C-alpha cells in the first residue's frame, strides 16, 4: 500500500508557561502525512515549527491533541511509536568526542537494531549520507556540513517510517545543500519526511506538499502544484531592442493594460482566461521591435508567503479595531 497514512496529527495545541490566556505556541493544528510524501513546514522564526516537530517526535508533550505515528499513539505507547521515528533537531545531537563510526554504532544500539544487522545498517546510512570516507574521524573535527550529514545518518539508521528534519540545510554550502536535497528526495521513496525550513526555494526543490504555519496556526496547506498555481499571475513581461508602441499592444485581444517598467521593457496585463503571448510575439516581429524577452510574470513564493502571513495580521487588527469601535 502506498497510500497509508504514517503521521496523523489531530488538534495539536501546546502552551508554554502556565499563565492562562497566553497565546499558545502551537494552536489547534491537524494534518496527515502519507507514505512516500515529503511535507514542507514553512514559517517565520518562532512560528511554532520546531515545537510541532518536537511534539511529533516525543521530545515535548502536547497540551492537547493526539499524534499517531504509523497507527500508534505516541502518548500511549511512546517506545513503540518512537521506534518508527528518526529525528534531526535544529542542532544535530552529536557526541563530539566520538568518531563517526562509534557514534553511529551507539545510535544503532539505541534504536535496538539487532547485533547482526548493525554493521549493515551503519554501512547503509553512511553510504546514503556520503560519510563512507570519514568513518574513522572524530565528529568534533568534521566540518559543519559533514556534522549535519552525521545528524541525518543518525535519523535514518534504523530505517524509520517517519523522518523528521528540522532545518536540515542550515549552514551548508550550495553544493552540500543540493546533495542534502537529493538525499531527502531519495528518502521519500521509502519513508515519509517532514522537514521544516524558512528557505522557500528549498520547499520547491524537495517537497510534495507545503504547510505554512504562522503564530502557531496553520494558514496554508497545499500541494506543490497548487502552490505553483498560486504563483501564476495574469501578466507577461516583454523586452525588446526598439521602442514599443503601447497602443498597438492594447489592441490585442485579451490585453487589459500595459505599463512601462523601463525604456525597453513593459508589463502586459491580460485577462486570466486568455494568453495573448503568441499574438504579442507575432506583432513584435511584424513591427520590427526585435524581441529580446517574453516571459510570464510569476509571484515568488516569498510574495505569497508575505501575503498570507500579513493578511492574518491585518485581519486580526481589523477585528481589534471593530471591537474597539464597539
Amino acid at each position, binding site marked *: 500500500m502506498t497510500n497509508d497514512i504514517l503521521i496523523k496529527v489531530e488538534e495539536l495545541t501546546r502552551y*508554554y*508557561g*502556565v499563565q492562562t490566556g497566553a497565546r499558545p505556541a502551537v494552536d489547534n493544528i491537524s494534518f496527515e502525512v502519507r507514505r512516500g510524501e515529503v511535507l514542507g513546514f514553512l514559517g517565520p522564526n518562532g512560528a511554532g515549527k520546531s515545537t510541532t516537530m*518536537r511534539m511529533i*517526535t*516525543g*521530545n*515535548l*508533550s502536547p497540551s492537547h491533541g493526539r499524534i499517531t505515528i504509523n497507527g500508534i499513539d505516541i502518548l500511549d505507547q*511512546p*517506545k*513503540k511509536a*518512537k*521506534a518508527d*521515528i*528518526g*529525528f534531526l*533537531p535544529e*542542532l544535530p*545531537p*552529536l*557526541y*563530539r*568526542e*566520538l568518531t563517526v563510526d*562509534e557514534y553511529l554504532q*551507539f*545510535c544503532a*544500539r*539505541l*534504536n*535496538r537494531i539487532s547485533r547482526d544487522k548493525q554493521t549493515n545498517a551503519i554501512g547503509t546510512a553512511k553510504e546514503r549520507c556520503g560519510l563512507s570516507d570519514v568513518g574513522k574521524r572524530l565528529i568534533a573535527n568534521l566540518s559543519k556540513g559533514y556534522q549535519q550529514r552525521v545528524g541525518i545518518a*543518525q535519523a535514518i539508521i534504523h530505517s524509520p517510517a517517519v523522518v523528521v528534519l528540522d532545518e536540515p540545510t542550515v549552514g551548508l554550502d550550495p553544493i552540500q545543500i543540493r546533495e542534502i536535497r537529493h538525499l531527502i528526495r531519495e528518502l521519500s521513496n521509502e519513508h515519509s519526511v517532514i522537514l521544516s525550513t524558512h528557505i522557500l526555494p528549498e520547499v520547491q526543490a524537495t517537497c510534495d506538499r507545503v504547510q505554512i504555519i504562522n503564530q502557531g496556526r496553520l494558514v496554508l496547506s497545499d500541494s506543490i502544484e497548487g502552490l505553483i498555481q498560486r504563483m501564476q499571475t495574469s501578466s507577461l513581461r516583454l523586452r525588446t531592442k526598439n521602442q514599443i508602441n503601447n497602443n498597438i499592444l492594447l489592441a490585442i485581444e485579451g490585453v487589459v493594460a500595459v505599463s512601462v517598467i523601463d525604456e525597453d521593457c513593459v508589463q502586459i496585463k491580460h485577462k486570466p482566461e486568455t494568453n495573448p503571448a503568441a499574438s504579442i510575439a507575432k506583432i513584435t516581429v511584424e513591427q520590427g521591435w526585435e524581441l529580446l524577452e517574453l516571459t510570464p510574470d510569476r509571484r515568488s513564493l516569498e510574495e505569497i508567503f508575505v501575503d498570507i502571513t500579513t493578511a492574518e495580521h491585518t485581519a486580526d487588527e481589523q477585528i481589534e479595531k471593530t471591537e474597539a469601535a464597539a
Partner: protein
Amino acid sequence: MIFTLAARELRSMFLSPMAWVILAVISGLCAYFFLLYIELYLQLQPRLAATPNAPGVTSVIVVPLFSTAATVLLLVTPLLTMRLISEERRNQTLSLLMSAPISMTEIVLGKFLGVFAFVMLILMLVAVMPLSLLAGGEIDMGLWASGLLGLVLLLASFCSIGLYVSTLTAQPTVAAVATFGLLLLLWVLNLAGSTGSEGGGVLSYLSLLSHYQPLLKGIFSSTDIIYYLLVISSCLVLSVRRLDADRLQH
C-alpha cells in the same frame, strides 16, 4: 539498553584526559595516605604488642585508609557526575535519547551505571592497596570487606545525588558546586547531633557519615544498608521525574 548508555558514558569519560587524571591523582593520594598509616603502625607496634586486646593491623591501616578515601572521593565525585545530564542538555544531545525508543528510567539508570562503574574502578585501586599487606602478614578480611561494602554504598549514594543535581541545570559547573555543597552538608550533618541540642539525633541519623562509620568498625547493620539503598533509589526516581517534567513545561 541500559548497558549501551552506560558503556557510552564510560567511553566518553576515558576519551577525555579527565578520567585518567582523576585515577592518577586519587591513587597517588591514597597511596601516600596508605604509606603514612603503615609508618604510623610501625611506630605504634612496640606499644601495641605490650597491650592486651590491642587493635590489629587492619584497624590501624585499612580502616583509616578507607575513611580517607571516602573524604577524597567526596571531593571528586561532583566532578564526575556534573556532566551527566547537564552537558547533554547544553549540547542539546538529550533529544537523541528522548526520540530513541527508550524510557526515561533506562536513560537515568544507564547514566548512573556509567558513572558508578567508573567510581568502582577508582575504588578497586584503593581496595587492592591493603591487600599488598598480605605479602608480609595477615589482615582481617571481614573488616576489609565490611569497610569496602560501606565505601561502595557511600559512593553509589554520592553518584545518585550528583546525577539528580545534574538533571536540574544545564551548566556542569553549577551542578558540580551544588553537588559538592549538598554532599558536604550531608556528610557533616552529624556534627549537629554532637552538640546535644534537640533534633540533633534526627540530623545525625540522616548523615551519610554516621551510617558509614559502623561499617568501618565491622558492624553490619541492615539499617545502614537500607539507608543507603533508600538514598540511591529516591535520587534516581527524582531524576526520572525531573527528566519527564522536561517534556511537560518549559
